[in-house]
């Protein structure tokens, strides 16, 4: 049941890896997220070096996003103009992220940076989601409609370089989408995530895109960013393991389909509440690793950075 990973230079139980892919795929299908934020920490828990885990998880995200994007494309629910503009920022962000990744690896601070970024991102996103879903559940039970606080879009309207996005029925500056793309590209390289859980809220609350094009457009953006990051990680850090990627993806695409079916049986607020708790649990586990006294204070890395 063991298989040798040529780039990670270690052997793993392939059943465990496929099960991991299926499990994360199931959750990502159920919640409609890429699942990178779960996959990377789980691979690290499973003993894969964190550089390989970050770089290889991206392939899993590319595959699951591809599957989702094709479904959205058939429904013509993709704003390619918006995706293209975001991608300009996304590419710059990715380049920056991969550069930062290589720098941190040389400094020996890879694990710290990945850990801290994860704890901050998961902690804040999880808290926001938890509050929002609890409020929605309360409103549902109270019979009152959930009031959605309008976000002030004044400063976004005043920015220059406006462009018309037909599909989204928007006439806004290209700067906010480029900025969002940049942040997501950088995080994608450092954390091994697609960034759906950042892009989707940003598109809805910041850019005010219609909900029906948000999913498809964010998926296109995610495919492009993760594909680019994979190539950059492969060329600059030699950290992508194709055998590991193949196993994860095979499990992931099956799990995602099962997850979509399971997810359709649960209500939206309950789903979001569960996802919020999951996000917070992963965040807490990673925070514990940062503050708990390690079993051995010394760690070892091959090579002389």
């Amino acid at each position: 049941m063991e298989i040798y990973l040529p780039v990670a230079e270690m052997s793993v139980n392939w059943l465990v890896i496929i099960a991991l892919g299926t499990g994360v795929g199931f959750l990502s299908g159920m919640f409609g997220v890429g699942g990178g934020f779960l996959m990377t920490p789980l691979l690290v828990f499973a003993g894969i070096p964190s550089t390989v885990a970050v770089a290889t998880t991206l392939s899993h995200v590319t595959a699951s996003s591809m599957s989702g994007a094709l479904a959205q494309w058939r429904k013509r629910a993709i704003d390619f103009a918006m995706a293209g503009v975001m991608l300009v920022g996304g590419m710059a962000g990715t380049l920056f992220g991969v550069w930062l990744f290589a720098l941190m690896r040389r400094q020996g601070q890879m694990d710290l940076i990945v850990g801290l970024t994860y704890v901050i991102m998961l902690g804040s996103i999880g808290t926001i989601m938890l509050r929002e879903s609890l409020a929605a559940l309360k409103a549902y039970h109270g019979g009152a409609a959930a009031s959605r606080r309008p976000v002030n879009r004044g400063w976004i309207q005043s920015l220059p370089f406006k462009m018309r996005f037909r599909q989204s029925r928007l006439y806004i500056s290209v700067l906010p989408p480029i900025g969002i793309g940049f942040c997501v590209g950088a995080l994608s390289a450092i954390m091994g995530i697609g960034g759906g859980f950042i892009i989707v809220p940003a598109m809805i609350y910041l850019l005010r895109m219609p909900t029906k094009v948000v999913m498809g457009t964010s998926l296109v953006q995610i495919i492009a960013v993760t594909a680019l990051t994979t190539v950059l990680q492969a060329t600059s850090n030699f950290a992508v393991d194709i055998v590991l990627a193949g196993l994860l993806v095979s499990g992931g695409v099956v799990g995602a389909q099962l997850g979509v079916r399971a997810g359709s049986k649960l209500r939206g607020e309950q789903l979001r509440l569960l996802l919020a708790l999951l996000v917070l649990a992963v965040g807490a586990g990673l925070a514990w690793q940062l503050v708990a006294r390690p079993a051995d204070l010394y760690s070892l890395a091959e090579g002389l950075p």
Partner: protein
Amino acid sequence: MRRALLALLLLIAIPAHAQDLVSGISQDIIQITSSYTGTNIVVFGAIENATSGQSRDIVVVVRGPDEPMTVRRRDRIAGVWVNSDAARFEGLPAYYYLASTEPIARIASREALARYGIGLQALKPSAIGSHHDPEPFRQAAIRYHTRVGLYAESPGSIDFLSETLFRTRVPVPAGVTRGQYNVEVYLFRDGEVVSAQSTPLFVDATGLERRLYNLAHNAPLSYGILCVLMAMLLGWISSVLFRRQE
């Protein structure tokens, strides 16, 4: 098997020192395939011209290729454990296994072992750059490798089949590095090496694993694009299959 063994003995065994010791290994190439999970090699040999009653301590050392390594120490900064201090070493082997008839401390003095460079404590890598005290870092490197099974000392693991014939089984775990290994066999008498022999052992990947590794390192751009295409293809296939089922 016995004939092969004899042939090997005759072929490989070129005693380095007197006609006291001949030795050989069961295979001189280990090939890493996709199902490689570690293996064993057998090191065997004979002591010649042995007069019974004389002490006959055998030490077998298998040493992997040297690898530069960086050892970092974590310190608590603002509640978080951060890598703060580091030492860089050259000359530490990626793999080190020692089998002996007795604990090596009983076979020879510490000075003699250090002189011959036998035993984990005799591993003296050179610290690159000046570090005020590389010793705890060196100990940490040995501790780390021992924990993951790449360094081991295994006293009492050499079997004598007769007065003069001996053999031992050397585990080669899954995490070994590719490269040239050396199998060294030492014959000790009264705390000094009287005969020694060294045989090379090669560990290499074969087939698909080798090709993928080479591709990843020699043509990383094509390799990266290949990874992306594979992911997209699998995503597309799953989407098609999924649509059929609906």
